[in-house]
């Protein structure tokens, strides 16, 4: 029997951490609070070191609405600055990437060196009477660090170190990343009409793989698929890397019409066809598919607007033929014309369309599939989703299943 309106709006009859209220995806106040309490206090992925390989190489980006530029300095250090001129606040670097000797604001031609120092003001002597002194006009620097070739920033100067923050969640990918000199060969970004958490959690909700034809044919029906446990880590991270007995999970790519198994070009440290995913809170996912590495990250713009970013990594210096093969395999699964990522975008937009008008008041995450040990949970469990919202609730100081009432009570 269909539910009445009252029944539909009542919380699901499950334990509290097994559902969240849809307002966490749609409420502008909650989004603003997330920016302050989560996004500006945790380590945020920026780019791969290969994108800023040479002195003067830069990547312009933004985080929580703040324009930023990450640049490799003359001392080889990678730094991030707020990308706005100390004079009248114009954005300084306007290209997404490039190489520069210094940063010049196009408005009044003020210049900054790659350490963020203000080094030139046309007719600068006119500031001598009222000030400020030029040395007080340097750019604001944002804490920047690198882990396994991945560049991160953190607005919070008091946060724990990047290595401590990632902790054991780095195990499934750090060694493989360090086995090679990697470079980004694929990039695309998509403006998704959905919430940043919904995008990220699609990477962590592997139950949805039933819906992808590729995953259904090459993975879900493959022996061992369900024998992989979620490994939860502190700070909201987690990964799914091996079968419970420690052996790799090997995808059968040849089961998809016209595809071949991935036995060649496999990254050192992986088995042929091996799949792994590591999720770094709050929104970076690192995927391996034997020959391909995917970095998936997003930039939240508004509750229902997220910029999704996709990067593919290859081995620097590999032959043209090998790169083409690797690229072909990457874009079969990930990319705007792929068999997987474009479908994920559609899932996120479809759910958001129902969440933003209240048609779907709760997001259910009550799947539990234990191994025989009754401790570890299998691949199609919602364990990681609950783990994510546990960390979200800790940082936000409220449960995700009732965030608005909590806000009202606090007022």
């Amino acid at each position, binding site marked *: 029997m269909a539910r009445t309106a009252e029944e539909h709006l009542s919380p699901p009859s499950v334990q509290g951490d097994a559902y969240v209220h849809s307002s966490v995806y749609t409420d502008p106040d909650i989004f603003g609070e997330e920016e302050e309490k989560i996004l500006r206090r945790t380590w945020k992925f920026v780019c791969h070191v290969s994108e800023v390989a040479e002195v003067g190489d830069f990547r312009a980006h933004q985080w929580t609405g703040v324009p930023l530029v990450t640049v490799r300095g003359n001392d080889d250090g990678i730094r991030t600055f707020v990308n706005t001129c100390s004079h009248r606040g114009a954005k300084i670097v306007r290209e997404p990437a490039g190489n520069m000797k210094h940063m010049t604001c196009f408005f009044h031609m003020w210049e900054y060196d790659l350490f963020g120092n203000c080094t030139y003001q046309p007719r600068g002597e006119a500031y001598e009477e009222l000030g400020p002194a030029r040395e007080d006009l340097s750019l604001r620097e944002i804490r920047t660090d690198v882990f396994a070739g991945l560049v991160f920033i953190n607005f919070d100067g008091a946060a724990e170190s990047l290595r401590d923050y990632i902790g054991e969640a780095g195990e499934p990918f750090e060694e493989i990343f360090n086995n090679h000199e990697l470079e980004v060969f694929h990039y695309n970004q998509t403006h998704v009409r959905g919430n940043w958490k919904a995008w990220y959690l699609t990477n962590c909700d592997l139950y949805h793989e039933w819906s992808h034809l590729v995953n259904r044919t090459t993975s879900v029906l493959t022996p061992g698929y369900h024998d992989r446990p979620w490994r939860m880590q502190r700070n909201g991270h987690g990964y799914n890397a091996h079968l419970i007995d420690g052996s790799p999970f090997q995808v059968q790519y040849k089961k998809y019409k016209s595809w071949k198994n991935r036995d060649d070009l496999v990254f050192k440290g992986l088995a042929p066809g091996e799949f792994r995913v590591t999720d770094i809170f709050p929104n970076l996912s690192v995927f391996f598919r034997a020959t391909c590495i995917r970095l998936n990250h997003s930039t939240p713009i508004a509750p229902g607007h997220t910029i999704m970013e996709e990067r593919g990594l290859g081995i620097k210096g590999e032959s043209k033929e090998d790169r083409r093969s690797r690229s072909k395999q990457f874009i079969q699964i990930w990319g705007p*014309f792929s068999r997987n990522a474009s479908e994920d975008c559609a899932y996120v937009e479809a759910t958001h369309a129902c969440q933003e008008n209240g048609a779907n008041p709760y997001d259910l995450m009550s799947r539990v599939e234990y191994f025989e040990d009754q401790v570890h949970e299998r691949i199609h469990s919602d364990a990681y989703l609950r783990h994510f919202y546990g960390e979200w609730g800790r940082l936000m100081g409220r449960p995700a299943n009732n965030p608005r009432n909590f806000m009202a009570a606090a007022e």
Partner: protein
Amino acid sequence: MTITDDQIRNLIHKSCRFLDAEEFDDYLDLYTEEFEYRITNYSREIRREQEWMDVNRGEMKGLLANVPLHFRLLGSFMRHATVYEIERDGADTAKALTYVTIYYTTPEGATSVWAVGRYHDVIDVSGDTPLIADRNMKLETREVGIGTHLPM
């Protein structure tokens, strides 16, 4: 028999019409046995050329055969193509440059420009009818929403 420029234009226009109509068998018949098809662009973010689709006949055939089985973008595409240049490249091949605008219409009937780009084609003109031997759809557009499973 010499293949005329009009025959080449007709071939390129057919490739658009067959894709619009999702008449995939007819679309594949426009290509040589050994053809290669790519969708490429220049990424300003990573400062390099990149491929977003790269398939040969077998891979294209498998891809198109599976399209109806995939969950995918609903609605339809319409390709508007203008052949700007045809250059003879010896007796057996010609090169054609075509500007393409792709419109997307939602299931509700709203239409917008989805992407713009250029076909860089190599045409096999050695037989009775021209065939596409190589197509590079070089996209100017780099933001294509949730994407699609189809060649462009």
